[in-house]
Structures are given as C-alpha cells and as structure tokens.
C-alpha cells in the first residue's frame, strides 16, 4: 500500500466518520426526545417532518444562525477553545471503534474503523479524560459563578468515575489479553448457544461498572449535577449560546453514542452477530446492522435511566463513586484475575 493510498483511505474514513457522527446526533436527539416523551405519556416532537424527525435539524439550524453572545468578563481565548476541546475528543474516540467487519478492496483489507491502535483502550481512556479540560476551561473562562460551580463539580465527578471506568476495563484486558479494540472484538467471535458469540459480557460486573461510569463520564442523568438546571442554570455552558453551545451539545450526544458503542464493542461482541446464512455479497451488512442495533439498545438504556432516576446529590455522587464503585471494582479485579489465572495456567496445585 503506497503512502498516498493510505492517506486517501484515512481521509475517506475520517470524512465518513464525521458525517456519520453528525447525522447520528440528529437521530439520537430525536430518539431521546421521543422515548422520554413516551415514558412521560406525551407525544414528543411531531411537527417538523415525519414523526418530528426534522425537529433536531430545525433546532440545529436555529443554533447556527443564533448570535453567539460573548459576555464581557470572559477569558476570550479559552472561552473559544473550550467548545472545540469538548468536541474534538468526542470525535477522536469514535475513530478506534470498528462498526463492521473488515472488507477487502482489491488486495487490501480495509477496517471499518478509523484506525486500529494496539493501545486503543488506553487511547479511549486518555481522550475521555481530556474532555474534563473542556468543561473546566469553559467553566473558568466564562467568568461567572454558575459555570464555575458546574466545572468544579464536573472535574471532581469525571476524575472519580474515570478511575472506576479504567479499573473496570482491567479484567477485560486480562481476559482477552490485548488492548487493541480490534483484537478484543475478534476475541468475542466464538460460538455459544449455536449463534451467540462468547461475549465479554460474561464479565458482568465489569460491564455494569463500565456502563455506570460511562453515564457519569457523559454527565447524563442521574449524574447530571454538572449541568443541574434547578441549581446552577446550565452548569459549565451557561454563558454559551449559538454555535458554541451547539458544539457542547454535539459533544454530549456524540459521547453518549461513543460510550454505547464502546460498551458494545468491549462487552457485547462488537459487530459480531448471526448472519442467518446470508450470501457473501449480503453478509457484510449484518455486522453493521448488529453493531448499530446493540449500540442503539444501549442508548435506549441511557434514555431510560434519564427518564427514571432523579438527579444525585453531590455527596451521594462522591460516596457512590469512591466508597462503592471503586472498592467493588478492586474486589472484582482480584476475583477475575484469579479466575483468569486458573483458566490460563491451571490450578497451582494441579
């Protein structure tokens, strides 16, 4: 593969990923509003387009054309940088997630992922930590009290749950023996009950802890005290409007999708799923469909949680994170390490 071919492939992948994420956000916002409406005995958006599907498009267009108000006391450079710093990690995380089976074009194998890093899991954790910067910068540079309070809460929350999130992935890495996401997906390919793969969901505590920490990472209900409307207006993005607010909004929904996609990839077998004996020319569709079915199911859980649980208090959040989640994860790491050790090396007395 020549250099420019690699470059071209990468460019196409990035463009497709970008377009996919933007259009997915539009669908996800609509999906969330509809689901929450159903759970609250309402109809949700119905006016714009069929079933109100264009409501998000209308909202987006409105945000783009709105004035981006800049308050007088902002630190301008950081104030501008913060929304970008929120969006960029969100976009970058998606690049390591394979959304379908690799396919061959001529003599080359092309992954349906932006790239395959051998440290992809660490890369994901690193980038999701970077998202904290956006929140803190936005809160501080706004020069206003509510964003600052939101940012303080956000940094504490994201750092706390970052720890649980990373620790929850330790058993997964030990179990599959790799930090490459492609290899982790491949490791879940086997047959079980004739059609289900041996997914990493057998590591149930890891799955649950990772997902809970993921909800906290994305600042979603019930961990949305970062942007608790009833206490601190909009939290860190109180002083943002128009396009700059749209970037934060976009980042939040892309992060929801990312966490769901990551959970799918790491625990639910990624794009693996039954193809029902479809012919080869059709079989490539199934992995993509399976990936999105699993991911959207997890997004639904996100929405379900939001519609069901009240917002946690700050001390409850900290207690849950440090006193419950992290000790539980540590115990689980020890247990799973012992189990994996037995599985790999046999019993020491045997």
């Amino acid at each position: 593969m020549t250099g420019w071919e690699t470059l071209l492939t990468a460019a196409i992948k990035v463009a497709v990923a970008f377009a996919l994420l933007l259009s997915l956000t539009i669908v996800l916002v609509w999906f969330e509003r509809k689901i929450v409406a159903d759970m609250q005995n309402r109809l949700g958006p119905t006016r714009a387009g069929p079933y109100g599907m264009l409501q998000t498009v209308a909202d987006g267009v409105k945000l783009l054309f709105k004035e981006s108000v800049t308050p007088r006391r902002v630190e301008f450079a950081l104030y501008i940088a913060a929304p970008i710093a929120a969006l960029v990690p969100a976009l970058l995380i998606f690049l390591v997630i394979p959304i379908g089976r690799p396919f061959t074009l001529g003599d080359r194998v092309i992954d349906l992922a932006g790239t395959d890093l051998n440290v992809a899991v660490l890369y994901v954790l690193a980038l999701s930590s970077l998202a904290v910067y956006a929140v803190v910068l936005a809160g501080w540079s706004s020069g206003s009290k509510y964003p600052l309070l939101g940012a303080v809460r956000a940094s504490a929350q994201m750092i706390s749950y970052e720890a649980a999130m990373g620790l929850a992935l330790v058993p997964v890495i030990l179990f599959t023996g790799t930090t490459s996401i492609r290899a982790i997906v491949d490791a879940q390919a086997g047959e079980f009950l004739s059609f289900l793969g041996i997914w990493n969901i057998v590591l149930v505590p890891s799955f649950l802890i990772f997902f809970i920490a993921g909800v906290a990472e994305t600042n979603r209900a019930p961990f949305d005290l970062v942007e608790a409307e009833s206490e601190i207006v909009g939290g860190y993005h109180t002083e943002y409007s128009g396009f700059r607010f749209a970037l934060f909004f976009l980042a939040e929904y892309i992060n929801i999708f990312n966490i769901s996609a990551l959970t799918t990839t790491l625990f639910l077998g990624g794009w693996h799923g039954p193809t029902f004996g479809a012919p080869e020319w059709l079989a490539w569709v199934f992995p993509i469909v399976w990936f999105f079915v699993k991911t959207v199911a997890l997004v639904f859980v996100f929405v379900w949680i939001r519609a069901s649980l009240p917002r946690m208090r700050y001390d409850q959040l900290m207690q849950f994170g440090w006193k419950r989640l992290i000790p539980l994860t540590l115990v689980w790491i020890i247990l799973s390490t012992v189990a994996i050790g037995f599985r790999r090396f046999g019993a020491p007395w045997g």
Partner: protein
Amino acid sequence: MGAWQDFRKAFGGFFVTARQMVRTVRGDGLVTTQYPQEKRVKPQRFHGRHVLNRYPDGMEKCIGCELCAGVCPARCIYVRGADNPPDEPVSPGERFGFVYEINMLRCIFCGLCVEACPTEAITMTSLFEFSVTDRDDAIYTKRELLVGEDGTPNHPQDPNRLIDLAELELADGWMRATSPSGRAAYEGVVAWTPSAGVGLRPPEAGQGEAEAVGSGSGAGAAQREEAGDESGDAPA
C-alpha cells in the same frame, strides 16, 4: 425487609417508566392533545372571555348600571350608561350601556361581574384564545363584547387560525349565577331570561328546577332551535 425490597426501591422506577412507555405506545396513556388541531371539551362553567348578551328580539340586556365595574376586583371594566333614545331604544329599560370596555390584560376571569349583573347581560363563554399583537387590542369594547343578532360573539381573532367555530356558535359557555352564594347545587327558583341565539337555558344538574322543567340537553337543544327560528340561527 430484605434484598427484594431494596431492589424494588432502587429499580422500581425503571418499571414505572417502562410500563408508561408501553401504555403510550399502545395509545391509551397519552395525556396531551395536539392543541390547535385537537381541542378538549371544556367544562360547562369554564371561565372564558365575556360577552354582552341580547334578548331574542335583539334588545341589549345591559342597562348600564355599572354593578359589574363596581364589583370587579381587577378594576378592568369600564361602563358608562346613557338614556335610551325613546324612539329607538337599545335596551328594554330606561338606560343602556353606552360604553362598555373590558381590559382583558387585567381581567382575572373570576366571574364576579357575571354574578353581579342584574339582567344577565354579561356572561362568560368558553372562548379563551385572545392573544393580541398590540396592547390596545386587548381592551375589548362593545364591538367585540356584544353578541350579534344571532347570539354569535364578534371575535377579533382570525377565525381560520385558532378559533373553534363551534364554540363561537355556542357563545354562552357559563350558566348564569343562580344562587346568591354561588353554589352550583342551588335549590330554588331559576328565573333567567332567554338570550338571542341560545334561547332559554336549561337549568343545570343539581338545581331543583332542572328535574322539574325538563331533562338536560334535549330540552336545551329544542329551545335553542326555537330561538333560532325567530331570530335567524348562526350561520352554518
């Protein structure tokens, strides 16, 4: 007390939302209506905007006594009476309401004016859509308040956009205050006068005369038809 109760406490909410979602998707849980297209039936005594009624022969009921203005807690009614011209009387009495204005921005829709009115000239309808683009338009004068010869109120809004035309035809949404204390279940003589376009209103349920005079809506419809015959019914 045990693990099950704790589980219920922690995750019971999820089953509530799931159940409500299933209900809504099935279509029997919906509590909202698509407002401009669908309208809820409003209660009979709904406190909507006011109208000034006429007798079936077209005479105005208002006698310009200003009791409504006096009782109004929001001070939103302005009335100035005048002597009826002898050759062309506007109302059956000595005087009539020469100027009658209600500031709808101030009105609190308490209905005290309706109770105070000695001739049942002012009543409330079930019309409630009166947004305006100019504050002056919110001051309803006799032009908006006085019903037409057929009992249809003159509404300043564009009828194609918001107004429920069926409600316009049935202007008198609220029954007259029949009880001195305002009790709905008033047992006593109901002695109101017929109105243009509506005729003689049937008594409400719970009012002793109601069961004696006739049964509910059937009689009311017949009377309305009767009234329509003599004064020309609302346009279809």
